[in-house]
């Protein structure tokens, strides 16, 4: 995996999330495209890359927020790592499994977020937030997970094809 593609994906995911996601909001719930790309990286490249992608993309989100620096970095890193750990135990070509993984990762990231924010004294209403934010977001993210996974999968295939072609040229 090449660093420019890795960093480019992080910036692209943020721009798309910032511009497109608000327009995709249903009942004020936005899909978390950055989390879904993190999930796809974890599933395709393993826990190390998934965790790193999550940490850097989360920290970028933290910088834009300007408060509670690190909360998104930690939650995204944990989500990417977890996705990478489950990578070998899942049959990723199944649509249902991808939907369930997307929804599960979303719930995990949101619960971790709530736990961390509670520690800082941020006012949360756990029961209401579960019903209004966590579960609807899980459903939405779960439904979008296969699409984002396929996009990142194709990007990886393109990247590998280019690398092989370049290596071939160097051998000649």
């Amino acid at each position, binding site marked *: 995996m090449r660093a420019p593609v890795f960093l480019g994906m992080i910036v692209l995911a943020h721009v798309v999330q910032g511009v497109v996601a608000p327009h995709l909001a249903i009942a004020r719930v936005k899909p978390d495209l950055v989390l879904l790309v993190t999930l796809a990286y974890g599933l395709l490249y393993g826990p190390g890359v998934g965790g790193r992608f999550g940490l850097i993309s989360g920290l970028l989100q933290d910088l834009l*927020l300007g408060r509670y620096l690190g909360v998104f970095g930690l939650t995204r890193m944990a989500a990417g790592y977890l996705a990478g750990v489950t990578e070998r135990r899942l049959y990723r070509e199944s649509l249902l499994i991808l939907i369930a993984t997307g929804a599960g990762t979303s719930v995990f990231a949101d619960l971790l977020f709530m736990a961390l924010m509670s520690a800082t004294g941020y006012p949360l209403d756990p029961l209401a937030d579960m019903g209004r*934010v966590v579960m609807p977001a899980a459903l939405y993210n779960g439904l979008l997970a296969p699409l984002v996974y396929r996009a990142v999968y194709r990007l990886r295939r393109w990247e590998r094809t280019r690398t092989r072609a370049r290596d071939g040229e160097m051998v000649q």
Partner: protein
Amino acid sequence: MIPVQRRRLLSLLVVLSTVVLMSLTARERERLTWLEEQAVEVLSPIQRSFSLAASRVRGTVQDLSGLARAQVENAALRRRLEFVPQIEHELQQLRAENNRLRQLLGFSESHPFTTIAARVVARNSDNWFSYAVLDKGARAGVERNMPVVTPEGLAGRVVRTSADTATILFLLDRDSGVAVGIYREIPGDEAPALKSFGVVLGQGEHGATLRLRVFAHDARIEPGDRVVTSGLGGTFPPGILVGEVRRVEADAFDLVVEAEVMPAVDFDRITEVLVVADPVVGQPP
């Protein structure tokens, strides 16, 4: 390759330092770090151009779908023309009401605010916070804690600025709090009557409503009461409409009165705002 133990230690250090960073930045800060400023400055032009492209695409789609509806609307408009005299009468009433509201809101000629018009270039992309990035920053005179209004009422306040951008915290955000007065229009009376003072708190974007807390157990708050900034908090000038009481809730211990407030501003549709550059805080109107 990094040995497994060293990698674990590195991961632990990353987690610990992030937790420390989070607790250090949980409160609002006077100044941003260079990295934070650069992140906003670099990403906001990209977001602005993508946002413009997205709104143009949306506009084209709306135009196309609008053509299909035009015929139906045409027929409906012809029917409505028959009601023009009635509509004109209603307009006169609305003008009078508007004048009253302008006085109430403090936007009258005698209390003009110096404002800086700004465009929203990005919104929070997460499901937890409620903020927006404006295309005007310190260079245009925007400063931290300046109130942000729309023609409908109070939207929030500036929480940080960079040279060419400003981040505003909407009233819906759970970190937001505004000192308010609760007013009731009584038929026959010139000015609305002040019923009580309280604090309006954000409940997150999903509630779309605000929480009013009045620390007087005998306060008589009713649905329909207007909630207006009191100027007592030290940040917002008095007289800006915040919203309207929708539902009053009884407190189990009878210590405070709580109510649900419908914000005057439609936060989903904010595209342009006014930053109040000279907020004169003080006594309520």
